[in-house]
């Protein structure tokens, strides 16, 4: 945490998606004074229509699949239909002879590009169904697809493992032993459990689920002589540039990556995809631009997932409801590859507890590589932890909300330092108030009963769950602000807007600083050629990372402009401020319009440069949130309908509250899908997925979406960064599923321990409840 030198570049630790990494950061030459909670701001903090809303709804916004270049070819891939094995024959002669076919590439025709565990791209060793084996470029997509069908291929099928089939899993047949087990412990968990008067243990399972971004993955690539131009549906233009340059063995200065509009990513578009590399190689081979857009099936097979996970949680508490111990063990089926994050993290952080042990076992399986998905690992962990919390609350006969109130953390227990602000309590109280939550009195079960006629057919329940997420953002992130002769301004930054509204939020920040109306500021992003570096749109980091960079760049530009205005007004520059399109001398009536100053300067160029400074080192920046759910469970069908979700989340200053709330809506809807419908179906024996389309893979429909009441606990956080923001993109998906599951538990008196909460599982639980005469069902 301490700086290694005192110069401009210092080595320090930074947080990326909750993990710490050593990095060099650049200290800013000057940092604007933080916008505190009382700062009077005109634009930052108010709802504004998305700058690209009209373009998107009228269809003029161009996504990657809308790109069409002169002479463009279309690519299609031959993908292995088997989960594991070897390609024993691959003959492309017939395919090459088909009309329109310009190139067919197999592993033999391309340079060695290390891909999965060192296996080359287009390897003949198959690790998962859908793995690319060969690619074709042809004059039309149809011709390319026909050529793929004509490739002669034979496979020798190997043994496979698709998921966590037995429990507990020690070793999956045919795959390497658990490649890694992560173990973190504080205190003495064994002893604390032994000494706890109330202990619960339960095992929870969550399925593999898919991102289902509306825009499929794909690239249009033109390798033109010494340059490679890539239009890509990506969450990270700079990351794609770096990875692609490395794969292709060319300099980064020869690669340009563009992503003007992105139709969602949710973590599945974080890296350079094989389709991008292959499109580049096909373009090189043909000398023509190549468009390679995956179809929904390919996306389901080869663009990542949230991994299937089994979690066993033991909690111990004192009689007064104070948590004594958390023992959390998880088994995670990554897929053919993936990164290690940890469902245990939330168990170590969300509630105050001295004795915590988390053990996570990661496995490789024969399905496509896992990728981050909105709040990776936390969503899984929260379901297990928050379900177990309700189980323990019931054991203790303490109201679940009150139980959480008694276990609020008072600091970051892992780093032993305070949070910049700890909003879990306020979020909890807000949800309690909005839901009219009042603890049940003994024997008080009427709340759940929802009588239809004489019979108890439908019961209601309510549940809550909470969330924590590292949300400080951080360096490096850069921005330029250029002021034009006519008094308009342009922001350039190498981030991207995957639908979250970053473009609008960043424009609001720049316009705020420059005192300009929003329509005089334009933001260019998603282009490595015209924009300076910014990180991926991930980890809920964008506003908190790029926002301060944009503000600093705008301040830098303004400073220069004020110097010119000082000349015009004959007032020292430090007495001038920009406000409502004018430069005003403070304390006087003298002012000049913004355009007057820029016209005065003529073609003199004013460019402001800004970047994100390091995070505070003595506090932790995290976003908290709580959600409450009300559900109805049909006792005769097992169908669960969510009636209402109340959500309170903390995000520091909400630059655009409307966009912030739409993040809540999106996260909650996705979380509802996770709770009730979504799962990747896989046949164990055949090792192939069975629901690779949006018909069989069930995302929520409009009719499933309940009343969603959102509440932003929005207080500027000047100690986090000088714009005062915290991240909000991922947090809202975290508590939704456990809140719904807890509401179902409340309704029927027995927990369904596996997601999604299908009719079959709920019916089975109801049966169990009736047998055990538990809860309202037993009262009958």
């Amino acid at each position, binding site marked *: 945490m301490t700086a290694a030198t005192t110069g401009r570049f210092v080595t320090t630790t930074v947080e990326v998606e909750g993990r710490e990494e050593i990095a060099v950061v650049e200290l800013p030459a000057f940092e604007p004074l933080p916008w505190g909670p009382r700062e009077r701001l005109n634009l930052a903090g108010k709802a504004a229509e998305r700058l690209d809303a009209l373009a998107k709804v009228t269809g003029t916004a161009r996504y990657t699949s809308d790109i069409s270049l002169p002479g463009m070819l279309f690519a299609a891939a031959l993908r292995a239909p088997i989960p594991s094995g070897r390609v024993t024959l691959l003959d492309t002669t017939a395919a090459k002879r088909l009309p329109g076919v310009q190139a067919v590439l197999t592993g033999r025709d391309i340079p060695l590009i290390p891909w999965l565990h060192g296996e080359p791209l287009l390897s003949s060793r198959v690790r998962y169904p859908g793995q690319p084996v060969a690619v074709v470029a042809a004059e039309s997509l149809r011709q390319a697809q026909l050529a793929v069908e004509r490739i002669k291929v034979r496979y020798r099928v190997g043994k496979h493992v698709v998921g966590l089939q037995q429990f507990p899993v020690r070793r999956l047949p045919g795959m390497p032993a658990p490649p890694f087990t992560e173990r973190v412990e504080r205190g003495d968990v064994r002893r604390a459990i032994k000494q706890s008067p109330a202990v619960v243990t339960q095992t929870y399972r969550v399925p593999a689920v898919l991102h289902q971004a509306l825009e499929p993955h794909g690239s249009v690539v033109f390798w033109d002589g010494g340059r490679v131009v890539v239009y890509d549906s990506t969450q990270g233009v700079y990351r794609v540039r770096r990875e692609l340059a490395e794969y292709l063995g060319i300099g980064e200065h020869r690669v340009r990556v563009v992503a003007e509009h992105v139709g969602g990513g949710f973590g599945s578009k974080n890296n350079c995809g094989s389709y991008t590399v292959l499109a580049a190689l096909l373009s090189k081979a043909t000398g023509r631009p190549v468009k390679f857009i995956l179809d929904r099936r390919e996306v389901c097979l080869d663009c990542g997932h949230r991994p299937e996970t089994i979690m066993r949680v033991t909690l111990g508490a004192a009689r007064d409801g104070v948590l004594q111990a958390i023992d959390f063990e998880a088994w995670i089926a990554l897929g053919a590859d993936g990164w290690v994050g940890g469902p245990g993290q939330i168990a170590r952080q969300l509630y105050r507890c001295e004795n915590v042990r988390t053990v996570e076992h990661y496995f490789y399986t024969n399905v496509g590589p896992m990728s981050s998905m909105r709040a990776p690992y936390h969503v899984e962990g929260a379901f297990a932890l928050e379900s177990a919390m309700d189980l323990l609350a019931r054991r203790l006969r303490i109201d679940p909300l009150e139980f959480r109130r008694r276990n609020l953390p008072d600091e970051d227990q892992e780093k032993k330092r305070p949070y910049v602000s700890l909003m879990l309590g306020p979020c909890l109280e807000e949800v309690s108030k909005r839901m009219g939550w009042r603890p049940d009195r003994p024997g008080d079960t009427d709340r759940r009963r929802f009588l239809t006629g004489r019979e108890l057919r439908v019961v209601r329940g309510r549940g809550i769950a909470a969330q924590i997420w590292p949300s400080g953002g951080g360096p490096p992130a850069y921005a330029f602000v250029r002021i034009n002769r006519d008094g308009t301004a342009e922001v350039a930054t190498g981030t991207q807007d995957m639908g979250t509204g970053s473009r609008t939020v960043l424009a609001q920040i720049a316009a705020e600083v420059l005192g300009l109306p929003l329509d005089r500021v334009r933001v260019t992003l998603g282009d490595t050629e015209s924009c300076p570096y910014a990180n991926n749109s991930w980890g809920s980091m964008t506003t908190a990372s790029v926002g301060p960079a944009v503000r600093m760049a705008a301040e830098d530009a303004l400073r220069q402009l004020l110097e010119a205005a000082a000349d015009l007004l004959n007032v020292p520059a430090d007495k001038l401020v920009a406000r409502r399109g004018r430069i005003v001398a403070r304390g006087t009536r003298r002012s000049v319009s913004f355009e007057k100053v820029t016209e005065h300067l003529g073609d003199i160029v004013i460019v402001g440069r800004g970047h994100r400074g390091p995070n505070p080192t003595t506090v932790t920046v995290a976003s908290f949130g709580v959600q409450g759910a009300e559900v109805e469970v049909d006792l005769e069908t097992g169908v669960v309908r969510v009636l209402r979700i109340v959500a309170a989340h903390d995000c520091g200053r909400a630059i655009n509250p409307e966009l912030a709330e739409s993040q809540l809506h999106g996260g909650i809807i996705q979380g509802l899908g996770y709770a009730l419908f979504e799962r990747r179906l896989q046949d164990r024996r055949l090792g192939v997925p069975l629901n690779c389309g949006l018909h069989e893979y069930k995302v929520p429909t409009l009719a499933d979406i309940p009343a969603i009441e959102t509440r932003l606990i929005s207080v500027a956080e000047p100690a986090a960064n000088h714009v005062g923001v915290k991240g909000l993109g991922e947090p809202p998906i975290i508590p939704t599923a456990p809140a719904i599951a807890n509401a179902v538990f409340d309704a029927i008196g027995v927990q369904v321990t596996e997601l999604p909460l299908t*009719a079959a599982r709920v019916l089975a639980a109801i049966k169990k409840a009736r047998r055990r005469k538990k809860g309202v069902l037993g009262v009958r």
Partner: protein
Amino acid sequence: MDSLGFHRASSFEEAAGLLHSGAAVLAGGTDLVPLLKDGLVKPSLLVFIGDIPGAASISVTRRGGARIGAAAKLTDIANNPGVRRLFPALAEACRSVGTLQIRNVATLGGNLCQRPRCWYYRSGIACFKSGGESCPARDGLDEALAILGGGPCWAVHPSDPAVALLALDAKITIRRADGSVRETSLADFYCLPSDRLDRETRLDAGEIVERITVPARYAGSPQRYAKVTQRAAWDFALVSAAVVWEKRRFRPRIALGGVAPRPWLLDTARLSDPPVSRRGRDPTAWELWAIRTAEQALRGSRALSSNGYKIELAKNLIRRTLLEWRRV
């Protein structure tokens, strides 16, 4: 797919005449086009019936029942005032199909002839339905499979309207390749996999559904279509039930969906008579009867490894629906 012809038929006679092997009827295309795209059917000619004059007509009278052209859209059936008044179970079943966009295009004839939704079959995995020699679903994820009438294929029939029409004792008018017409009851229209594996109906090559007729006998009688789905919209039935009461002899015709490879008609002879006396209905006796009927209805059902919930679900649904008539 090599080449695919397209013909716009101007009459059912003409259409039937074109149905040599390799030709397929195209109505709304909501099922056929996805099947084509997934390579599950490979016709050489599509015979489009949507433009045939009168093919989409719907006429309903209390005396004459309903006559519905095979190409009538589900939306139009669901919204037809006559259907809604006299055959509400059918209107409800049509309305419960998929999404509004689908119903605006899907036809009744196409709906009755749609192919099963088995995950394995639709994923292109070789099985009995696709000419293979096993049923991978039976040995794999079987939670959506049949609890009645299954084997060797266990995929359930997906249609909602077929269930209502079965309870309404509908008739199907079929045009044959030689121009002649035959009529069959909906009950005889469907078959089981043990009879035939390549399709779910008894339509022979060269036969086409021209019209669906609902007899007047049930016009305006008490009736209901109830469908249980996981999602609130755009979902096939986990289990569905149509209950239609005969007007004179007070007895229900009950059909189930989502439980068998065909829409499943309960054998009324095996069900006990409802407790109706001249003095009206005794709610307790009625309730006992509903429970008994639900049990009888599922007699002979058989659970595979994980579809047993459907038995309970079907019983509950039958009981619940019958209870709606507990009081007159």
